């Protein structure tokens, strides 16, 4: 465990010292929060409810987690591209130490990112005169834990399967599709038809739905329980897949 924590500490330092991390993981989501609030203030209240701050904040928090996926993939693929990992393979570190050392820092960053996003959303909500419920924000942050792990699992998998040039590109595609099918920038529920069916086939839709329901302190079966269960299942699947792939790749590298 000490070795995993040492690697965690290394990864946190590397990430916190990368200016791009702040731009993508914090700056961009916060800018979107402000822009979409301005859009919401400029259109009739009933027109697009998804931009109301109580719906926008959880959506933007999910959007931010997708950038954590990108940075996980970048971190893993960059380490793989050089001989740094090879040096670590020659030490007593195990695949489990390395995998934990990639997952734990990204999870910590994801929690901090969600806290900052909700703090900013709270300030915005006070400014526009519809203060967000603190209880709702805390519940939403808790509901975002499984989706954070799911996106980290995606990042780990992509970082193992692709190199440092192609992994970020692939993550960008996932970010675009995820924010679209997750219903972050439009109300997927109201579109109905084939579009809604497609959204429901992706885990992103359930991430947003669970976070928004928690924000509204609505914990009914359809709105919260079912979506969060699906996200938990996907998180377990993706973390397992990512970790398994890493171990397999490590064994192949040492073959």
């Amino acid at each position, binding site marked *: 465990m*000490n070795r995993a924590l040492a690697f965690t500490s290394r990864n946190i330092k*590397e990430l916190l010292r990368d200016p791009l991390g702040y731009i993508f993981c914090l700056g961009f989501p916060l800018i979107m929060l402000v822009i979409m609030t301005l859009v919401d203030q400029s259109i009739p209240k009933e027109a697009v409810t998804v931009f109301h701050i109580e719906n926008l904040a959880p959506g933007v928090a999910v959007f931010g987690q997708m950038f954590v996926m990108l940075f996980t993939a970048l971190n893993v693929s960059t380490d793989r591209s*050089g001989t740094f990992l*090879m040096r670590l393979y020659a030490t007593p570190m195990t695949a489990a130490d390395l995998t934990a050392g990639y997952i734990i820092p990204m999870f910590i960053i994801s929690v901090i990112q969600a806290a900052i996003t909700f703090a900013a959303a709270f300030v915005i909500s006070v400014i526009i005169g519809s203060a967000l419920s603190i209880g709702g924000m805390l519940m939403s942050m808790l509901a975002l834990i499984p989706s954070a792990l799911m996106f980290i699992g995606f990042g780990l998998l992509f970082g193992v399967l692709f190199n440092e040039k192609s992994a970020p590109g692939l993550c960008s595609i996932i970010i675009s599709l995820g924010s679209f099918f997750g219903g972050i920038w439009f109300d997927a529920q109201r579109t109905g038809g084939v579009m809604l069916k497609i959204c429901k086939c992706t885990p992103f839709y359930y991430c947003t739905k669970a976070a928004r329901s928690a924000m509204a302190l609505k914990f009914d079966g359809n709105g919260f329980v079912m979506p969060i269960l699906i996200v938990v299942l996907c998180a377990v699947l993706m973390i397992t897949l990512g970790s398994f792939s890493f171990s397999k790749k490590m064994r192949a590298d*040492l073959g």
Partner: protein
Amino acid sequence: MLAVKTVGLTKRYKDLTAVDSLDLEVEQGELFSLLGVNGAGKTTTVRMLCCLAKATSGEAYVMGKNCDSDKAAVKPVIGISPQDTAVAPRLTVRENLMFMCRIYGFDKQKCEQRTGELIGALGMQKVADSRAKTLSGGWKRKLSIAMALISEPQVLFLDEPTLGLDVLARRELWRLIESLKGKTTIILTTHYMEEAQQLSDRIAIMIEGRIAAIGTLSEIEQQAGAEGLENAFVAIAERSAQQ
């Protein structure tokens, strides 16, 4: 006990035999160089000895431990400085060393003590708090070697340690490697003749995965019937090509 021993060590990648029936014995405290052109099998040999590649056949032992069946016993007694400078770029020199200490399970006091010792011994005081990515090639190699030395390994593997460095940085690194002689067994791979000549107690010339000649410089010159390592190397390589 021998520091390194291989018996019929072979590594094949599909149709390519990278290392072919290698028999090698290195005494403790020796600085032993594997000399050869690119693709001769030097790095693959080092990888097998460091538990980073599985031998297709044959056996490899480091300090009497089997590199395949007893990796957990081999890893704590070795240190490796890979061909590329394998350092964490956004960590400082000190942080890189502390990180390696923690991987080997040292407590905080030992981490600080060992890090301080190596920074002092390798003359890295002025760059100790600089991030690794801002260092010159020579400093990065020094840091890479320091990271390999952190666990006080009994066998140190230096894979092309001066590759791509300018002449001054190379000479400085030679002085560092010379200062380690006798304290730890060093296996050095290089394709620079003067480097092998300057530093080694014994040299093995590898050609196409096989050892074509082995011994001290004078022994190799005798085997080749030529004076100087470069001439001896050329003579041995030409003889191998004819066979």
